[in-house]
């Protein structure tokens, strides 16, 4: 979703009425190019648990194996902090999937640390406390909900402070962490159904477009430059997977996302 909090819609076209006509029993067709109304130029990025829940239905992934130890470097670089924040929240979703209380608590504390560095601790503390309290009760659904709330609160605050680019960085970091986990699981137990979960070109296009709209300073940030190159690579692989993703293409996508993640987490 557009996080500018501003008036924002695109008129896609007005020359024809909505192209929605019956073509077969119960089926209608829709041509977005001939859409006569407003296109809400806004993308809601799925949280990692939306994909994780499908992977759970397709098998029994070893979620504990997917948890990564958090060793975030100390930095005052807000772009990097926002990227890190997104990855940490996504790590929280992995820990919830693994039902790993200790990891959730560690992640909750890291959320507090990062929010302090971002100057957002006042808004985040209630959520972080709720995460820690729910972890004591092994209340996984509440923790999952609270991670989603935490991310939304942080992004709302960033938008209020006219830091929409940082808000996008939070989404980007989260998507990179989530996709690294998804590709790792698919690679370990490949199937076409699992691999199809990577068919997300619209999200990647959204991130590429979001980067192009960032202020020049952010756009030229070392991490963002690398992320943009990585996203273009990933998009090309997604678009070329017309007949489905091969094991190799899943590994490649995972490799790109994993490398970017490592660079964010090491601050390099």
């Amino acid at each position: 979703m557009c996080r500018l909090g501003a008036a924002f819609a695109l008129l896609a076209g007005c020359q024809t009425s909505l192209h929605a006509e019956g073509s077969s029993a119960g089926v209608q067709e829709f041509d977005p190019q001939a859409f006569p109304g407003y296109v809400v130029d806004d993308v809601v990025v799925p949280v990692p648990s939306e994909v994780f829940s499908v992977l759970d239905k397709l098998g029994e992934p070893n979620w504990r194996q997917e948890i990564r130890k958090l060793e975030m470097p100390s930095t005052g670089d807000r772009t990097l902090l926002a990227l890190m924040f997104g990855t940490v929240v996504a790590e929280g979703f992995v820990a919830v999937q693994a039902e790993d209380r200790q990891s959730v608590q560690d992640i909750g504390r890291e959320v507090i640390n990062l929010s302090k560095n971002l100057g957002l601790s006042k808004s985040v503390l209630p959520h972080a406390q709720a995460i820690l309290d729910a972890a004591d009760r092994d209340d996984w659904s509440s923790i999952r909900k609270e991670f989603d709330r935490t991310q939304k609160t942080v992004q709302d605050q960033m938008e209020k402070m006219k830091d929409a680019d940082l808000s996008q960085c939070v989404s980007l970091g989260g998507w990179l962490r989530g996709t690294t986990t998804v590709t790792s699981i698919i690679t370990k137990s490949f199937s076409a159904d699992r691999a199809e979960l990577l068919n997300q070109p619209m999200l990647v296009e959204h991130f590429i477009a979001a980067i192009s709209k960032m202020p020049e300073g952010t756009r030229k940030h070392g991490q963002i430059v690398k992320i943009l190159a990585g996203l273009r690579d990933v998009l090309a692989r997604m678009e070329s997977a017309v007949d489905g993703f091969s094991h190799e293409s899943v590994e490649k996508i995972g490799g790109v996302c994993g490398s970017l993640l490592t660079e964010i987490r090491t601050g390099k």
Partner: protein
Amino acid sequence: MNLNLTFRRRSLLASACALALAMVGPATATVDDAHSFAMEAAQSFVDQGFIVREDYWNGEVKSGVKLMVRHQLFKGNEYAFWLGTANDGVDLELKIYDDKGKSIEMDRKVDKNSMYASVRVNPPKTGTYTLVFSLKSHTEKSVFWALAYGYR
């Protein structure tokens, strides 16, 4: 068309709040009220195990004008979308199309007071889907709306 659409997000409000707002006239209706009604629609789904996302779309739109939202869905999940309005006497329409422009089979329900509509869908493939919706008021020139979703 130069109507501005404003997009903001707000925390969930309790159903009781939404009910109270139902008695407030359109003059004081807001996009937040529309979201409250969408959340009222979500309540029965939550009872069935749906997880409601915190993020959502909302705004104000000219009555009857169609809106389009693109969204990523994952095959294997069941999704529910809740369209809420803060205005009385509104006809709500909501349809979902796949990336080829084919309409997707879905279960659609509208509440008796027409303050919200819900659809549930099992995406046949993982990919980008298009939601097309409109809110046609019998009395107002423009209406407030909110579209939220959940999955299980």
